[in-house]
Structure formats: structure tokens, C-alpha cells
């Protein structure tokens, strides 16, 4: 075997090897996983944004209600406390890889939701408050925000489902295992029912 032959064979092996790697990364879902992982993160950011938006409304809302219904201390304190506990959970995208933290975050938000709906029930007893211009405005903002939260959560659920299906089907599952992409947590159903309903306002 001449030296030229040897070089040629080596070269073809090298190129073949490079081709194999390329083929593997493209056909075994590596890129798909990357894309969907980013989509999940984006969807999650949207969820957090909307929750933040809600949290920002709370102080104003509490103050407005206080002006008319200071005696409803219990509910007001509960709302304030719920907001504090929401703020204590760091909602970075890292929590998507930590089911415990994720559950904790959702629990805090769930408490916020139920505290708010109780507040809205109490409000019914105060006609003056209900007709207050700034309260009506806040109520509209809160309703809109609750709806945005519901939409953002649904989109997160969909994107996580897509991602999870990708990392659990063959042959992507091999790629996912190699690169350490795990399934991501999703909102649980009972929680879902509780949260996706905006506070009911009875007339």
C-alpha cells in the first residue's frame, strides 16, 4: 500500500466521519430539541411576565379597596401576604428543570389567585367601591391580566407538550439522553382549573 493510498483512505474516513456527525445531529432531533427548548423558555417568560403584571397591580388594588372597606382586614392581609410569597419564589427559567421549585411557584400563584377572588367577593358588599372610577379601571386591568395569564399558561402547556413529545420519541430520545435534555414539568390539572378561571364577579 503506497503512502498516497493511505492518505486517500484516511481522508475519506475523516470526511465520512464528519458527515456522520452532521447527519446524526440533524436527523436525530438535536436541532429540533434546541428549537423547542427555546420555545418552551419563551413561553415560560411570557407566563412570568403576566404573573408579574398581576403582582404589580396588587398594591394599587389593595389601597383602593382599603379606602372603602378598611374593616375587611382579613382579606386584605391575605392578599398582601400572598403577593409577598409570590415574590419570594425566583421564577427564572432554571425552575423549569426543578419540579419542586416549579410546584412551589405554582402553589404561590394559586394562593394569589384565590386570595384575589375572595377579595372580589368581599367587594360586592360595597356599592360605593364598585362604582369608584379607579376601582373599575383596576378591575378591568385585573380581568385582562388574568386572561393573559390563562392564555400564556395554555401556550406554555402546548409548547411543553411538543417538547416533551420530541425528547421522548425515538430516535430523539437518544440525543436527549446524551445531551441531558429532560422532560419539562407542566401545570397540573387541578391547579389549571383553579387558576385559569378569572375571578368571578356576580351582579
Amino acid at each position, binding site marked *: 500500500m503506497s503512502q498516497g493510498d493511505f492518505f*486517500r483512505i484516511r*481522508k475519506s474516513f475523516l470526511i465520512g466521519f464528519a*458527515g456522520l456527525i*452532521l*447527519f446524526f445531529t*440533524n436527523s436525530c432531533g438535536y436541532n429540533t430539541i434546541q428549537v423547542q427548548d427555546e420555545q418552551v423558555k419563551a413561553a415560560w417568560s411570557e407566563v412570568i411576565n403576566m404573573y408579574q403584571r398581576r403582582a404589580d397591580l396588587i398594591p394599587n388594588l389593595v389601597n383602593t379597596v382599603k379606602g372603602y372597606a378598611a374593616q375587611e382586614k382579613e382579606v386584605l392581609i391575605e392578599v398582601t401576604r400572598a403577593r409577598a410569597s409570590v415574590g419570594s419564589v425566583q421564577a427564572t427559567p432554571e425552575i423549569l428543570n426543578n419540579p419542586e421549585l416549579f410546584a412551589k411557584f405554582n402553589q404561590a400563584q394559586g394562593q394569589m389567585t384565590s386570595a384575589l377572588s375572595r377579595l372580589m367577593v368581599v367587594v360586592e358588599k360595597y356599592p360605593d367601591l364598585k362604582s369608584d372610577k379607579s376601582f373599575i379601571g383596576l378591575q378591568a386591568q385585573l380581568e*385582562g391580566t388574568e386572561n*393573559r395569564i390563562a*392564555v400564556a399558561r395554555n401556550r406554555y402547556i402546548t409548547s411543553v407538550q411538543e417538547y416533551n413529545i420530541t425528547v421522548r420519541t425515538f430516535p430523539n430520545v437518544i440525543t436527549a439522553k446524551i445531551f441531558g435534555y429532560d422532560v419539562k414539568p407542566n401545570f397540573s390539572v387541578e391547579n389549571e382549573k383553579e387558576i385559569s378561571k378569572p375571578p368571578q364577579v356576580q351582579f
Partner: protein
Amino acid sequence: MRRLLFLPILLFCSGIFADQIPIPKLTHRVTDLTSTLNEEEVSNLENKLKDFEKRKGSQVVLVIIPTTGEETIEQYSIRLAEDWKIGRKTIADGVIFLVAKDDRKMRFEIGRGLEGAIPDVISKRIQLEYVRPLFKEGKYYEGIDQGIDKILGLIDGEPLPEPSSTSYESNAAPEEDQFGLYIAALVVIGIAVGFIFKKLFSLLQAGVATYAGYWVGGLLGFSLEVMLPLLVIFFILLCIIYIAAKNPGSGGGGWSGGSWSSYSSSDSGWSSSSSGDSFSGGGGDFSGGGSSSDW
């Protein structure tokens, strides 16, 4: 494409798809399934919305349905918005005015790009102060007209990009063109690779060329499912070309491209025709902004 395959699974998983009222087809700017408005009123509103889109570029549509079924009006409305994609792409300046007549509920669904121009508080105020009182008296047309006027006024005050001369072009190139382009790309790449790496042995060469073709196809947005049969054919062809090139005299280069055109990528055909007077959404997105009221 792949997403479409999973759609049934997704729908199944979501579990909240009990009995949904189907979304009506979007053909006009005013969709009245309850016959609340007479023809003249419908065409008045249609023209108003059409002129506005010509002038400003934003798409505003009105939908009147009897009921949203088991869903809340918000849930129905966002489904409708995601289906219709009212508003221009990336500008996302669409508004849907939804009236569920028997439920006595209405909603403004505001596109993402107009959430600044029409905050929730303002759209709520429009509903409470202008539309609701008229609806209470049963003056549906007047109420709707008022509501739409207010919304258009708000959008008018918002600096938006100029409307394009063709208001709703489909931005996807015709499928055939893309397909031809892609075949051409495959051939060119294959041949180029073939002649550059003459030193390699044929199988590897064909493989690499095929992979390159696959990659380019991926860039053009073709899914693997569409390309697999093509790639196999392409691979074989490359081998043949190569062998022909290796054995001069056996007339290489004479193959007919006719048989290829029978492969049409029918499963990625989502093209929307934009002929004559038909109306379609421009690809705007929504994130649940807006407000709902009853009357």
C-alpha cells in the same frame, strides 16, 4: 408538518376540549351568524372596516355568534384569534369585536401590537359607556357601530407602519416555485460536490451530496417526510451520474427531469388565495389582551 402530526395528540392531551363551538370560517370582515344585522347594516360596517384597513393597515373584524357554548367568551375569543390571525404579521394590529348574543356577552380581543393604543381599561370603558347602554335597549347595530368607531379612533391615534398597496398578500411563494428551486439546488449541489471531490469514492460522495441537499432543503423549510423519497432518488441518481462520469463513453448526463415533477409537496400546502374580494387575516398574533362585558 411535524407539528400537524402531533396536533391530535395535543388536542387529546389538553382535556379541555369538551364540546367546543366550532370557529366560523373567515370570509368577510363582518360575520353575523345570528342575523341580527340587516344587509344594509352589514355592508355599512364592512365598508367602514375595509376603508380603514386601506387607509391605516389595521384589520378590525366583527363577529356575532349566538353563544360560546361551555367555554367562556375569553376562551372562545382567543381560539378564534389564533385561527383567524387578524392583523398584519409582526405588527399584530388586529382587533376582533366578538358578540355572543344569547349569552349577552361581548369582547374586544386586541392584537399584541395594539395593546398600547387600546389598553384593557379603555376597551372596557368603551364597552360600559357606549356599547352596553345601546345593547340593553336592543339597539345592536348602533351599539356595534359606536364601539367600532371608538376602536378605530384609538387605532388612528397610534403611529403604525403604512399599509402596503396590496393589503393582504400571501407572503408564501407558490409551492411549485419553491419545489423547483429546491430540486435545482439539489442537482447543482450534487454535481458540484461530485466534480470537486473526484478523488473520493462514489458512495461517500453521493452520501455527502445528499446530506448537503438535505441540509439546503432544511434551510428552505422542507420537512424530512417530504424529502425522504426525493433524497433516495437523488442518491441513486448521483451514483448513476458518478458511474457514468467514471466510465466515459457510456453517455453520461442524459437523464430526464420529467419524472421528478410528479412529486409535489402537497402536505405543506397552507397557501391562502387572495383573489378578488375575499378577506383573510394577515398573520397577526394575540396574547389575550382586551376586555369583556355583559349587558
